[in-house]
């Protein structure tokens, strides 16, 4: 050291000495105590500003050696205690350095923070890339492991602390340069530096995110316009940093992205040239970010996507050409967009709707016509993207095993499938097609989607186009058209049938729900479903649609026969019922192609029968004749089919028909004279209020003011309802219809395959069935189970059964329908025999009545009419052989005493002695049963009364007499 200085105080000497010591130590020329050296360095730093850089550089080596020791210590896995001595002084120096630097920063943040933060960031970057892959943390280790490793190292922890302290000082004044430094270091030492950024970022999330984005954008707009946007060096680190921060600050990222996007769409304000240059690069930048990180894609798709509307598209379209440059052509841009769209976990429907609305806008007011070239390009581009998107999904699905492939976009759409479904009903063919394709693709993975969509369509389709869409949806899945082998095709067919069946079930269920009115939402008219099903069935039967040839629809309906029948049972709207019945008819009757293959189980058949009967009564009560006839024809058709194939169904149908028409509320339709019912009116009148009205004054006992309305409490006073008796015409009509239906039920469709006879309106009626009818009549009308046998007892015995007889008689009087039924039965001999008990009861009551009439010597027209009816019945059923069969023609001309005599001798006694039994009848060559009149010629003891009575009244009955009792000669000839 030279001593030539003119004036030299002691302190500069010291300074110089310190400096020399430091330089010597730092350059390793002299061996020094590291702690001493560090102290010297710190003092030099405090007193000699010129040495600042050098000292900081020296600190770098200190930190480096500390970290290196730490890392090797971990690597060699030394015991914890043995290391303490070596790292002791270093830790101490590092702590001292920390304190000094922090003091500097806090004393004058503006001046010191940039220096220290740059230094610490650079050092951190160097350290983390130098020791990357060491200390049992592999290069590929995740951020968390790295973070843990470095945060447990004292040196790096202190560095991080210093950095954050500097940054927090600078954050308010000089964010730009801060983040730039951070990013630059991150670029230089990527990916080893990521943990620092992550740590710093989580300390200042909002600032870091927005600044990182803007830095990235700036960089992108400068570098990205070249051919490969991947050249932008900061992009990857931007993505990395945002990815790390996404874990805990996702909302910040989302809002930052949204702000950026909205900013990019703002009109240029000519604020600064640099900013304007960045605007067009924003969207490509965002796209690029999204393509590099699914997290960011998620963030973008949650927020940004929702702000996009079709009306914004023209604006975007104007910008789009400049975007293409960033990706090397429009093709690449479209590809990128498609792939991004595929990766969206949310907002799938949003994307789809946007594309669709843009491709074929339904509402032209949003994309106004003036700029037609722009809107045309928007349209064509959207179409293109949409097509690409669908193709890509298709491709992906086909190239993987079912269930193995998961496309986020599809999943997202699946969650919001209710948004897509209405597209199926859109008037625009593109919308419909897209929806069909998309749902078909979705259906590849989850049948439920397919099913619910099909159900949706079934319920709402109102045009042929919609039904075509439905057919395409169901038949046009992925697996069927390509599968080659027969087996697979069949499987596919079953699959489709199953699909459709489930869809139908779902549709019916929701349909029923809407009938009950549980949802206030716009529900399609319930008839629509059945219209549609019927329509489809007709298509299928027409055989013109190749895709429906496998009996797809009818099979599907058959799977749901039970539900269909249930619906038919419960439905009250005749039109709806008609539609359902039609479907039923088309399914089970009209389809002859495969009914031998398919056998309906008994329970189902019974249910259907019941349903049809219910439908019949509904039809009958219908006012409109046309509807009524159509319905009844349908019923006949159905019942004939059902009962010819299933005896149980027949018996059930018959029982239901009879019971319903006779005793239930339907009986009114058939002219039943019911006692005028006293019912509580439906109006909302309370009995209490009515009674209050009466007594405004003080109520006195025994005065008329104290007489109250009689009524049901809570329902108001009783009112006698006028008995709405049916028009006689209608009654006749209805009765005819009922008879028709019963006949249809009884028709013998043949046990085998008499398919031809089914179509003819006049079916041969099976006798067994008619027998069933007559037995049913007995069962229903006779109140007793005893003494219902065929034989007629002594007349005296009537005194025992008089009660029952009167009951039966009463029923006959009240229910004129019974007469018609009886005559039906009588037509088909010998079924009337089984109704013997009814006839007996009638006859017994008639006897008694005529007897009393004889005493009073008055003529009773009604009595006469009834008697005539009974006698007619017996004659029709050939229970009374000629000449007894002509009794009804005789009676009107006789006095009551004579009538009593006649009935007793000719009817009662004859039948008592000749039990009316089917055995009396014989089958002729036509298969009809007849009672041989020659064999059954009654003995004189039964005819004599008639003969003498007629003789007594020969003035009226001359002609008849000659017919009934021809001269003996002819009689002898006959014998």
């Amino acid at each position, binding site marked *: 050291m030279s001593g030539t200085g003119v004036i030299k105080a002691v302190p500069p000497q010291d300074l*110089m000495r310190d400096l020399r010591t430091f330089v010597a130590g730092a350059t390793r020329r002299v061996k020094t105590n590291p702690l001493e050296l560090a102290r010297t360095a710190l003092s030099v730093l405090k*007193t000699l500003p010129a*040495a600042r850089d050098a000292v900081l*550089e020296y600190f770098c080596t200190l930190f480096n050696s500390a970290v290196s020791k730490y890392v090797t210590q971990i690597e060699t896995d030394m015991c914890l205690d043995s290391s303490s001595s070596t790292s002791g002084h270093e830790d101490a120096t590092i702590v001292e350095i920390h304190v000094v630097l922090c003091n500097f920063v806090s004393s004058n943040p503006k001046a010191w923070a940039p220096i220290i933060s740059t230094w610490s960031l650079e050092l951190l970057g160097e350290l983390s890339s130098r020791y990357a892959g060491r200390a049992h943390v592999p290069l590929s280790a995740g951020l968390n492991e790295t973070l843990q490793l470095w945060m447990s190292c004292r040196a790096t922890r202190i560095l991080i602390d210093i950095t954050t302290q500097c940054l927090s000082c600078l954050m308010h004044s000089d964010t730009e340069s801060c983040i730039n430094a951070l990013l630059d270091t991150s670029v230089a030492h990527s990916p080893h530096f990521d943990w620092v950024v992550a740590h710093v970022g989580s300390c200042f999330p909002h600032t870091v995110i927005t600044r990182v984005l803007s830095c990235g954008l700036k960089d992108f707009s400068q570098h990205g316009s070249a051919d490969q946007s991947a050249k932008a060096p900061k992009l990857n680190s931007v993505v990395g940093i945002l990815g790390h921060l996404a874990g805990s600050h996702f909302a910040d990222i989302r809002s930052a992205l949204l702000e950026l996007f909205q900013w990019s769409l703002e009109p240029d304000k000519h604020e600064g040239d640099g900013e304007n240059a960045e605007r067009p690069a924003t969207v490509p930048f965002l796209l690029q970010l999204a393509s590099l990180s699914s997290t960011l894609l998620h963030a973008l798709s949650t927020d940004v996507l929702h702000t996009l509307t079709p009306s914004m598209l023209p604006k975007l379209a104007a910008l789009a050409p400049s975007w293409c440059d960033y990706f090397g052509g429009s093709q690449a841009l479209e590809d990128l967009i498609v792939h991004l769209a595929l990766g969206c976990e949310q907002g799938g429907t949003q994307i789809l709707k946007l594309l669709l609305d843009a491709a074929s806008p339904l509402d032209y007011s949003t994309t106004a016509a003036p700029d037609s070239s722009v809107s045309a390009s928007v349209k064509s581009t959207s179409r293109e993207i949409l097509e690409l998107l669908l193709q890509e999904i298709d491709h992906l699905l086909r190239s993987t095993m079912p269930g193995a492939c998961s496309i986020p976009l599809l999943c997202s759409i699946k969650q919001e499938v209710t948004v897509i479904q209405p597209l199926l009903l859109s008037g625009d063919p593109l919308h419909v097609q897209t929806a069909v394709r998309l749902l078909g693709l979705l259906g590849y993975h989850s049948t439920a989607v397919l099913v619910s969509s099909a159900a949706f369509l079934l319920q709402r389709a109102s045009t042929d186009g919609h039904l075509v869409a439905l057919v395409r949806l169901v038949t046009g899945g992925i697996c069927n058209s390509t599968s080659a082998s027969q087996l697979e095709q069949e499987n596919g067919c079953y699959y489709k049938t199953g699909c459709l069946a489930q869809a139908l079930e779902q549709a019916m269920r929701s349909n029923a729900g809407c009938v009950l009115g549980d949802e206030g939402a716009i529900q399609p008219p319930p008839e629509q479903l059945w219209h549609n099903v019927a329509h489809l069935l007709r298509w299928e039967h027409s055989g013109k649609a190749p895709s429906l040839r496998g009996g797809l629809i009818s099979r599907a309906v058959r799977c749901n026969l039970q539900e269909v029948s249930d619906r038919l049972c419960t439905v009250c709207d005749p039109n709806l019922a008609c539609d359902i019945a039609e479907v039923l008819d088309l399914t089970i009757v009209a389809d002859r192609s495969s009914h031998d293959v398919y056998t309906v189980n008994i329970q189902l058949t019974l249910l259907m029968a019941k349903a049809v009967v219910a439908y019949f009564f509904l039809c009958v009560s219908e006012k409109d004749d046309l509807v009524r006839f159509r319905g009844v024809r349908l019923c006949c058709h159905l019942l004939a089919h059902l009962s010819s194939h299933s005896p149980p169904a027949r018996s059930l149908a018959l029982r239901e028909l009879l019971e319903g028409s006779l005793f239930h509320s339907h009986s009114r339709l058939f002219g039943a004279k019911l006692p005028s019912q006293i019912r509580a009116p439906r109006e909302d009148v309370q009995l209490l209020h009515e009674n209050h009205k009466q007594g405004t004054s003080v109520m006195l006992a025994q005065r008329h003011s104290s007489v109250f309305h009689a009524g049901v409490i809570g329902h108001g006073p009783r009112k006698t309802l006028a008995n709405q008796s049916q028009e006689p015409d209608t009654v006749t009509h209805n009765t005819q219809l009922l008879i028709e239906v019963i006949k249809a039920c009884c028709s013998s469709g043949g046990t085998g395959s008499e398919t031809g006879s089914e179509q003819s309106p006049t079916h041969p009626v099976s006798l067994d069935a008619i027998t069933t009818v007559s037995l049913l009549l007995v069962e229903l009308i006779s109140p007793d189970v005893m003494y219902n046998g065929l034989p007629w007892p002594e007349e005296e015995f009537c005194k025992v059964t008089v009660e029952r007889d009167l009951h039966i008689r009463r029923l006959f009087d009240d229910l004129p329908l019974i007469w018609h039924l009886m005559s039906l039965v009588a037509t088909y001999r010998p079924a009337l025999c089984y109704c013997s008990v009814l006839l007996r009861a009638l006859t017994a009551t008639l006897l008694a009545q005529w007897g009393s009439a004889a005493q009073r010597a008055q003529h009773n027209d009604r009595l006469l009419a009834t008697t005539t009816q009974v006698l007619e019945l017996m004659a029709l059923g050939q229970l009374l052989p000629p000449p007894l069969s002509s009794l009804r023609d005789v009676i009107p001309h006789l006095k009551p005493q004579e009538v009593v005599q006649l009935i007793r001798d000719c009817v009662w006694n004859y039948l008592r002695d000749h039990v009316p039994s089917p055995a009396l009848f014989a089958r002729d060559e036509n298969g009809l049963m007849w009672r041989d009149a020659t064999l059954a010629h009654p003995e004189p003891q039964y005819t004599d009364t008639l003969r003498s009575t007629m003789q007594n009244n020969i003035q009226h009955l001359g002609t008849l007499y000659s017919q009934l009792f021809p001269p003996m000669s002819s009689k002898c000839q006959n014998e």
Partner: protein
Amino acid sequence: MSISNSELKHILKETEFPFCARIALGRVEEMCTTQNIGRTSGAKHVDISMEIISEFVFCEVDRRGSRKRRLNCIQELQLLEVLCDFFTSSVIGGEAVRNMVFMSLFPPTHSDRSRLLIKLVSMASSTKNVPVLTATGMWMQKLGCTSKYSLDLAQGLVKDYFVLIPKAVSGLQDLPQLAPQFTANFLTAVAEMYGVVEKRHIFSPPPDTLLEVITQWVSDNPTLCLAALMVNLQLALPLGGVPMAAITPFAGLFKWCILAPLHYVSQTSTSDIPTSDCNSSESPLYSRLHLALLESLLECYAPSPGLHCADASATENISAQHIAAIIEPIVRWLKDRTRMENESARIRGELALHMALDRLAQVIQVALVTHSVYGNIQELFSQLEMLPENRLLQIVINTHRNL
């Protein structure tokens, strides 16, 4: 001179870094000495010495002339140490040679070396290395105290001592005694640096520590401001060197003192300017500095016999133009002030204005009386007319107009 240049280069190449710089410096000094005596023609020697400096002192280029890796900071520190040692020990050629070497080390053409120069000067200031500081003072004066180079240097020093490590200031107390010329030139540069008028502000106040130190310097050393004038430059400069006309820090520092009241009063009145970093009220240091400056003006009017300065130079302290430059911001401030609505602010503004005008009048009075002003004085007076009415100023004008 015993070895040829190529041999020297060979030797230098064999030598390690800090030592080769030392040897190279010695060689350069030798060459400068011969040049100064005038024995050899300049141009070739200058080239060779430049080469050597570039290759072996600053290690900027390697032997093939291409760019080398920069020295790291510790090596730089070593180099600084070597440089300091060299300047302290070099006695062969006297001051002129030293300055010559210094000039060749830091020529204005090598702007990238200014970083090192700042460090060197900073280090010299702390270690009180007088030769280096003196050479720097010369360097500044040659390049012009208000030139960009000097301003950069001043800025670096201010950052080191007054911003980053204010505690190190204590080491600068005796700087005026050690290197008065350097200090004076430094003051000129600093005054210029902070006197630069920005758009919104009429004046950017210096850090308090800086102001304090300057006040102390000026009041303790009345002749300090004249130091730049008092040195006979021709002796210190190498052969044929022409110094720039010296500028004293008077005008710049007076400007601080005069504008400071206006600055602070406008800072308090307009609330939109954040007042976090600077005190909102005027520091009393300004008036102390003002007084010290006036005293030192008076001081040099009655020069002590010990000083060897000529009367002629003493009268050329302050350019009339520089004083006139103070008037313009005041006028501008007046225009701005018309926007003030607040009554109390208006009153405070009035007070501040009169204080500023008083100080201006004092300065003019003293300067004129001591004959320190040169240049177009009439022009100055006509400009003074533009200022608002002030009693003292009026008296001063009336007194001197007639002369």
